[in-house]
C-alpha cells in the first residue's frame, strides 16, 4: 500500500501532493529530490526508479520531465507501484488532454479529485478513466497545445501526414468540442520500436521489434469493436520454421484486460469494448528477421599525421513513398580529437552537423530522408596527439534515432476495424496509423 503520492517539477517543486496514510513524515519530497539529483557525485549515473532512504521506499517514473513519485514503508510489489504511477499519469492525461507542468498546475483541483478516487488509504480503487468520470466534477482547463512538446509516441502524429487531425491526441475525454457535441472517432496506432546492432561488417548481430497497438476511443455508448490482424500471424518461437516468408511471427504478446480472444485462434481477430481514454490493446515482441529501414556504413581512416577522415553513409531501405523524420546520427570520436570539419553532399537540404567538444562526439541531423535514398557525410578530424594503435577501436559505435510515419517493419497489420453499428447512419471516424521509431539502432565500427 502506498503512503504518499506526489508530482514534482524539474526544479523539485511540489505540483501535487497527496498523503494517503500519514505514516511517512512530511518533507519526503525534498529528501527524494535531493537523492535523485545527487545520486552519484560524478552525476554519471541515474538514480534507479526504486530506492530506500531511512526505511522509506521511493518509487518514481519520469514523464514529460515531471517526476511522479510514490512512497511507502511496506515491502510492496515494485511492479505494481511503477505500473500505477504510469497509469495515474495516463489517467491525468486523458482528462487534461495534454500532460505537462502547466496543465497540471492549472488543473490541480481536478487532479486531486482523480487522486482521491484512484486510491483510498493507499489501496488502489480504480484507474479506469471511464469509471472515474462519475466522480470528477471539475471541468478541465485546456492549455494551449500548439507550442508544447507533445507527449509520447502518439504525439508524433501531430505533425504527421495530413490525414490525421492534429487535435485528436490532445483532446480531453470529458471536454466537449466547441460545437457542444463530441466527434465520434477512434484512433488505433501501431507503434513499433526497433533495436538493431550491426557488426562492423554490416551483419545484423541482434534485432528486435517491440510493438504496441494503442487505442484511443472517443466513441459514445462504448460499442463493441473487432480488430482483425494478419491472418497468417503466428505467436511463439516454435512456429518460426513452419512458415514461409511473408508470415508474421511474433515471439510473444500480451493484451489489455478488455480484449476477448474467443476468435483469435481461428481468424486472428480481437474483440473488445474499448474503455475511454488511451490504452494499449496489445503489446508484442518480435525477433524474427526483418528488413531494417536503414543501413549504416561508417569508416574512419588515418589521413596523415594527426589527421583522420570519417565517412558516414546512411541508406534508406524503405519504399520511396515513405519519408522518415528527424533523423540523428551520432558517433563518438577518439578522445584526443581536437577539431572536426564537415563536408555535406552537394545540394544537401535540412542537414546540420556538429562536433561536441565536451564528449568528443560527432552529430549529424537530417530533417527528412526519403525512402530509397542515400546520404553521405565526410568529416576531417584533427588530433592533439599521435594515435597509437587502432583508431577504429577508439571511435564509435554509430547510433541513430529516427521516426518513420506510416511504416512498420514487422508487417503486422490491422486488416480491418469493425464497430458494432447502432444505426445505419452511424459511421464514426476511424484512424489506423503506423509509426516506426528507433529504440537502440547501433552500428559498430
Amino acid at each position: 500500500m502506498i503512503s504518499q503520492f506526489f508530482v514534482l517539477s524539474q526544479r523539485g517543486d511540489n505540483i501535487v501532493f497527496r498523503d494517503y496514510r500519514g505514516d511517512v513524515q512530511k518533507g519526503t519530497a525534498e529528501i527524494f529530490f535531493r537523492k535523485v539529483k545527487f545520486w552519484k557525485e560524478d552525476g554519471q549515473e541515474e538514480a534507479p526508479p526504486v530506492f530506500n532512504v531511512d526505511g522509506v521506499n521511493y518509487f518514481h517514473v519520469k514523464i514529460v520531465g515531471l517526476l511522479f513519485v510514490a512512497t511507502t514503508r511496506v515491502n510492496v510489489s515494485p511492479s505494481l507501484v511503477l505500473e500505477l504511477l504510469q497509469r495515474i499519469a495516463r489517467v491525468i492525461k486523458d482528462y487534461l488532454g495534454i500532460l505537462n507542468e502547466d496543465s497540471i498546475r492549472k488543473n490541480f483541483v481536478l487532479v486531486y479529485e482523480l487522486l482521491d478516487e484512484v486510491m483510498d488509504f493507499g489501496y488502489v480503487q480504480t484507474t479506469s478513466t471511464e469509471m472515474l468520470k462519475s466522480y470528477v466534477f471539475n471541468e478541465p482547463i485546456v492549455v494551449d497545445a500548439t507550442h508544447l512538446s507533445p507527449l509520447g509516441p502518439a504525439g508524433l502524429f501531430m505533425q504527421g501526414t495530413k490525414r490525421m487531425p492534429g487535435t485528436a491526441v490532445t483532446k480531453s475525454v470529458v471536454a466537449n468540442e466547441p460545437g457542444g457535441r463530441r466527434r465520434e472517432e477512434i484512433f488505433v496506432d501501431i507503434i513499433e520500436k526497433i533495436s538493431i546492432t550491426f557488426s562492423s561488417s554490416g551483419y545484423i548481430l541482434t534485432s528486435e521489434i517491440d510493438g504496441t497497438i494503442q487505442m484511443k476511443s472517443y466513441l459514445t455508448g462504448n460499442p463493441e469493436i473487432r480488430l482483425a490482424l494478419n491472418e497468417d500471424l503466428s505467436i511463439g518461437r516454435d512456429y518460426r520454421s513452419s512458415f514461409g516468408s511473408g508470415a508474421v511471427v511474433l515471439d510473444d504478446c500480451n493484451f489489455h484486460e478488455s480484449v476477448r480472444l474467443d476468435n483469435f485462434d481461428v481468424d486472428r481477430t480481437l474483440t473488445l469494448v474499448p474503455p475511454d481514454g488511451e490504452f494499449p490493446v496489445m503489446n508484442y515482441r518480435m525477433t524474427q528477421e526483418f528488413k531494417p529501414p536503414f543501413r549504416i556504413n561508417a569508416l574512419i581512416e588515418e589521413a596523415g599525421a594527426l589527421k583522420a577522415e570519417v565517412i558516414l553513409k546512411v541508406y534508406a531501405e524503405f519504399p520511396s513513398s515513405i519519408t522518415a523524420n528527424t533523423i540523428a546520427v551520432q558517433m563518438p570520436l577518439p578522445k584526443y580529437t581536437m577539431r572536426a570539419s564537415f563536408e555535406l553532399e552537394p545540394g544537401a537540404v535540412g542537414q546540420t552537423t556538429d562536433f561536441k567538444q565536451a564528449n568528443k562526439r560527432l552529430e549529424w541531423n537530417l530533417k527528412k530522408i526519403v525512402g530509397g535514398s542515400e546520404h553521405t557525410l565526410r568529416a576531417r578530424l584533427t588530433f592533439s596527439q599521435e594515435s597509437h594503435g587502432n583508431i577504429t577501436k577508439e571511435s564509435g559505435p554509430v547510433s541513430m534515432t529516427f521516426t518513420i510515419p506510416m511504416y512498420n517493419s514487422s508487417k503486422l497489420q490491422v486488416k480491418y476495424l469493425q464497430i458494432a453499428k447502432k444505426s445505419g447512419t452511424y459511421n464514426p471516424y476511424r484512424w489506423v496509423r503506423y509509426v516506426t521509431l528507433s529504440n537502440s539502432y547501433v552500428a559498430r565500427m
Partner: protein
Amino acid sequence: MAPPAQSQRSSSPSQPSGKGEVSDLKSQLRQLAGSRAPGADDSKRELFKKVISYMTIGIDVSSVFGEMVMCSATSDIVLKKMCYLYVGNYAKGNPDLALLTINFLQRDCKDEDPMIRGLALRSLCSLRVANLVEYLVGPLGSGLKDSNSYVRTVAVIGVLKLYHISASTCVDADFPATLKHLMLNDSDTQVVANCLSALQEIWSSGTTTSEEASRERETLLSKPVVYYFLNRIKEFSEWAQCIVLELAAKYVPSDNSEIFDIMNLLEDRLQHANGAVVLATIKVFLHLTLSMTDVHQQVYERIKAPLLTLVSSGSPEQSYAVLSHLHLLVMRAPFIFSSDYKHFYCQYNEPSYVKKLKLEMLTAVANESNTYEIVTELCEYAANVDIPIARESIRAVGKIALQQYDVNAIVDRLLQFLEMEKDYVTAEALVLVKDLLRKYPQWSHDCIAVVGNISSKNVQEPKAKAALIWMLGEYSQDMQDAPYILESLIENWDDEHSAEVRLHLLTAVMKCFFKRPPETQRALGAALAAGLADFHQDVHDRALFYYRLLQYNVTVAERVVNPPKQAVSVFADTQSSEIKDRIFDEFNSLSVVYQKPSYMFTDKEHRGPFEFSDELGNLSIGAESSDTVVPGHRVEANDKDLLLSTAEKEETRGPINNGVYSAPSYDSSLVSLSASQSQPDVAISSPTIPGHAPQSSLAIDDLLGLGVPAAAAPVPSPPPLKLNSKAVLDPSTFQQKWRQLPISLSQEYTVSPQGVGALTTPQALLRHMQTHSIHCIASGGQSPNFKFFFFAQKAEESSSFLIECIINTSSAKAQTKIKADDQSASQAFSSLFQTALSKFGVL
C-alpha cells in the same frame, strides 16, 4: 497534519511566504462564509483553490480551518471535495477544530446522493483524531450496509482507518466480522477486494497477535476462501487481481491435482498487459511447484516469454522492475536461460541501472556454447563511452573466466584489454589478471609477458597498482626487471598515498628478495626504512615485523612471507544461499529489486550502511553449513506477510518457528531452560525439530568421539536464557555492533584431542554450534589457526550476543570474546556457549 514549523518551508521567491496571504484568505473566506448571493460559490471555489495550492507547496494554512468549515455549508460538490481534502490534511494537528467538522460530515453521511455519502464517510474516517472515534462507528455501520457499492467500498476502507486510530473501538463494534461477511457475500468485486485488503492488514498488525488473529489468518487461506476468490478472479480489477494472486501464492494445496487446477485457471493471467498481474501470477506458479522439480522447471520455461515481453514493452522504470525479477530467476537457474543470452545484451541508450543487471545476467548464463559470443559482446562494452559500464563489463569478462569456460580465449581478451591503453581498462584488467593467476597459475607465462610491458606510471588506481605490485612480487623470477620496477616504486614512497599499495610494496619486495637477493637487497633496505618511518600504523608494523623476521632468520622469513601457495578453487560468494532463498520467497516485492531480504530494509534495527570491513571481508561470509542443518529458513516480514510461511508447504518439515518475526504463539514449542535442568542441551538446541535435534547433535558428538556426558556439563543457574534458533543478523549489522559494543567476557579454553581432530573440517563446529542456536556469521583461517564469528539472539527479543572465537589446534587453545546487547545476560549466555563448546571437545 502539518506542524507549524512547516510554514517556513516555502522554497522559491515566487511563492508566497505565508503569513500575509493566509490572513488575507482568512478574511475573504469569513466574508463569504454566510453569503448566499449568486456567484458566491464561484468566489469560494477560487479561494478554496488558493488554500489547497498553498497546502500543496507546504505553506501552513491550518489557521483558516474555522473559516473553511463555515464555508463548507454548500451544495456545491467541488467545494465540498476541496474542503474534505483540506480537513483531512489538518484535522490530526488540530483535534479541537476537527470537532467542528464532525457535524457537517455526519450530516453528509446521510445525504441522499450516494457520492456525497461516500465522500463524507471517507473524510470522516480520514480525520485521524483518536478522541473522535466514537462519531465514526455509527456512520461506518450504516455505510457497510449502504445500498450503494461506492459507499460500501469507502466504508470498508473506513473500517481499516478506524482500526489504525483505535483498534479496540473497531473490534468492539464487531467490524472485522462484518467485513468477513461482506467479503464472502457482496456482489461488488471492489467491496470484496477492499475487505480482503483490510482483513489482511487487521489480522497481521502488531496489535492482533492473539490466537484469534492466527485463526483468522488461516481462514483467509482456507480452501473455500481461496477458491472463492480464484474462481471469480476475472471479475476483479487488475489491481484487485494482484491482491487475490498474492493470497493464492500463500495457499497450500492439498494435492498435485489442485496445483494443476490452479495453474490452468491462472494460465491466461500471464498474458496480461499489466506487469504487476503477470509477476503476481508467476509468484503463484513458482511457489506452488516448489516441491515438484520437473514442473517447477517447466514453469521457468513458460514464464520466460511473458517476462521478456514485459521488459521490452513498458517504460524504462517498469522494465527495470520486471528485469530485476528476471535477474533473480536467471541467477537461480542460469542454465534455463542460457540460450536467451542475446536478450541480455545492453542497448546503448539504457540507463546504467538496467545495464548493470544485464551484465550480471550475461555473466551468469555463460556456458560452453555461448561464452565466445558473450565475451565478444562484453569486449565491445569495454570500449564504451560509458566508463562505469565499461569497467563492469571487464569485470564480467573476468568473472566468466573464473567460471572456467574457454579460459584460453578469455585470457587472450583480457590481455588485449591491457593493450588498449585506456587507464580505467588497464586498471580493471590488472585486477582481473591477478585474480586469474591466483586460480590458474599455469597462465603465468602469457600473462606475465604482457603485464611486464605495462609501465607502472600508467597505473594510478590503488587497487590496480596493488595488483600489479603483487604480480611483480609473486612472479619476480619470471619478470626480468621486477626488482628495478619495485625499486623505482619505492623511490617514490612518499608520493604513494594509498596504504594498501605501500603494504603490497613491502610484501612484494620481500618476495622478490627471496628469489633474487643480490638485485633486490638495496630496494629492500630502502623499503624497510621507508616503512619504518611510515606514519600509517599498519605499514609501520608490517615493516617492523619483516625487519625483525629477517633479523631472526631469513629462511623462516621466507616461509612466512612467501610460502608455496595453492591455487584458489572458488572465490567466496558474497551472498549466502539462505539469503537468496529468502529473497526468492519474497518474489514480487522490493526485496528482489534491492537484492536483500525484507528484514534488512523494513526494520529499523537492520538499517545502516552495508559494507564489509576488511576483517569480515577476508573471511567467508555466512555459514555455509546452515543450509544443511536448517534447510532454507523462511522468515516472514513482520508487517506484511500475515499468512503462514511458505515453508510449511513442504511436508518434510515439522512445526515451523518463524524466529523473531513470528507471533509469540509459537513460543510454546520452545522448551525453557529452567524446565529442563537435567538436559541443558535440549533447551538450547533448535526447536525446529523438537525431539529430533537433540539426538542428532548427540549423534554428531558421538561421531566425533566426544563422550562428554551431558550431565557433567556446567549447568547455568537461572535466569533461564532461551536462544532463538532462527536468529538473523546481517554481516554489516554484526560489524557495526562488534565495533560499538564493549567486550563483556573473554575466556580461554583447552581443546581436547578429539576436538582438534574434529576441527580438520571447521564446518563441523559451525554445524554443531547451530544445533545450539548459535550461528556462524563468518569463519576463516587455515590450520592450525581458525577464527570464527558467531552470533545468537534471545528467543523473545532481538537482543544479540556476538562471539569471536579463535582456536589454535597446534597449541590446543581456544580464546573467546563475548559481546552482548544486554550485558547482564552475558554471563548466562557464556555458560550456554561453554556448554555448547564442551560438547565439541573445547573445555
